[in-house]
């Protein structure tokens, strides 16, 4: 059995206990716990996944299979800011491809990659429910609507200094 202090701070562990307590069925807390751990640590390390499985009382494989299934969960480190560009139809016909090219130019990386300074990771996502203001993208939890090639640089700059 892993000790929590190997992976988490006391505060993190106590937050995790609160999340687990919200569910009568402990396994239902897996996804909220993985969201929480990723928020706190940036990604889901093997250690963290092993600990969460033991914390919930399920085989280790359970947290690994969940972590590798969902698009929004990362088992490898990502940049400090996650840039998610919608590439679905409503955004596509309103210039998403140009926006994506602009982002690639500005960041100097391809889709799926992280900038060498580890500030940004660029990914494509499927419909973020902002089709009325296409093209749209999300950076961390912030929605950016009606993005243009010209506004890409300004938007990215507003994140460079953010923690």
């Amino acid at each position, binding site marked *: 059995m892993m000790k929590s202090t190997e992976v988490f701070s006391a505060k993190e562990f106590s937050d995790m206990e609160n999340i687990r307590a919200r569910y009568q069925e402990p396994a239902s807390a897996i*996804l909220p716990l993985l969201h929480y751990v990723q928020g706190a640590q940036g990604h889901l390390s093997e250690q963290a996944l092993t600990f969460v499985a033991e914390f919930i009382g399920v085989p280790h494989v359970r947290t690994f299979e969940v972590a590798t299934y969902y698009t929004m969960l990362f088992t490898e480190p990502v940049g400090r800011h996650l840039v998610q560009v919608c590439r679905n139809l*409503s955004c596509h016909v309103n210039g998403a491809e140009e926006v994506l090219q602009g982002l690639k130019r500005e960041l100097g990386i391809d889709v799926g990659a992280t900038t060498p300074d580890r500030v940004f990771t660029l990914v494509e996502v499927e419909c973020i429910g902002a089709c009325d203001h296409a093209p749209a993208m999300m950076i961390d939890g912030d929605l950016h609507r009606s993005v243009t090639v010209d506004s890409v640089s300004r938007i990215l700059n507003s994140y460079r200094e953010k923690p």
Partner: protein
Amino acid sequence: MSELKILTRNVSRPNPAHIDSYLVNEGYVALPRALNEMTPEEVIDEVKIARLRGRGGAGFPAGMKWDFASRDRRKPKYIICNADEGEPGTFKDRVLIENDPHAILEGMALAGYAAGAEKGFIYIRGEYPQGARILERAIAEATSRSFLGDNILNSGFNFSVTVHRGAGAYVCGEETALIESLEGKRGQSRIRPPFPVNVGYSNLPTVVNNVETLASVPPIILRGGAWYASIGTPECPGTKLYSVSGHVARPGVYELPMGVTLRELIFDNAGGMREGRTFKAAFPGGASSACLDESQLDVKLDFNSLAVAGSMLGSGAVIVLDDTADMVKATHVLIKFFEHESCGKCTPCREGLFWVRRILDQILEGSASEQDLDLLLEICEGIRSTSFCGLGEASVSCVESTIKKFRGEYLAYLRNSGSGEAETEAAS
């Protein structure tokens, strides 16, 4: 047709998500009325009289779902609000979540009372972190005023709600995959039957209703099922939230009586096409619906009429394309989406969509032959008829319908490796 604001009645109010804004406009009036004056059976009957059909896409009668769950004697039972709207082109539930969360909570409590459930979950897509925060705050407000929690308004009825965030999996919008995900597993569909109303969350009776469906319930209890049934069409009563996007002048969510035509929605409500452009096609029910062409502009946008027209209403996500659209590229975009989102459980969807995308790649590259169109349709038929869940079945509608209606654009790619636009005229 002008908008009829029943679900969106609070959307343009100041600070709409706050409980006081909800209360001044008959908010939390239906719930005490039901708890004090109606039996659970009477609540179910009212929803049956309203003939409210599920707004998530399937159109199943909500009253029947509640009835089935209420008749199951096993406890506890669960109400799940499906707020995982992931169908590309859909953004209607977001409007309700962000602007009228209490209508959703009141609808859930009414569903809980009707079906005999004391616990509710809102499964909200991971891409809506702000929506999740708004719902959390609304739950705290409602609990502090005894509209949720133990012994609601001294009625003896208990009902609590937990917000549960998804993590970016389209398939989790399908109710059994959603339940798997809520149980802390990979979100993959279950075989049906048994249906969730009997064997749902933790294998217990579970009602899964869409956000819009649940938000429709308080007005139905307040004004009566007969009033609601008088709106829209006889088979599909009520209003519908249509998410309109793509090449229209004013994209947005429009609440209209069911059965508004595509032409009315685009030209009367969404501002028509962009200046100087003409209508070419629309996917009336999001990425998984078959496209409609210009000859179908007068089709009514309701469950039955769209089924007759060979398409489907789905969640009411109307993606409109004008004469600049390349239908082959549009189809390619949609198929890449489905390929990415296939959960991998069944072979036809997992492998089939890979091959469909590969052939579309080749068509766009100019390295395919006309026989490949037949092969494409053959694979689509296989996926449609043998996929495990409805999402797999519907994934190929875009390919089948665009080949049928815009074959000329495909042929143009096959004949020369240039753009397909030159052939559009001949096709339509």
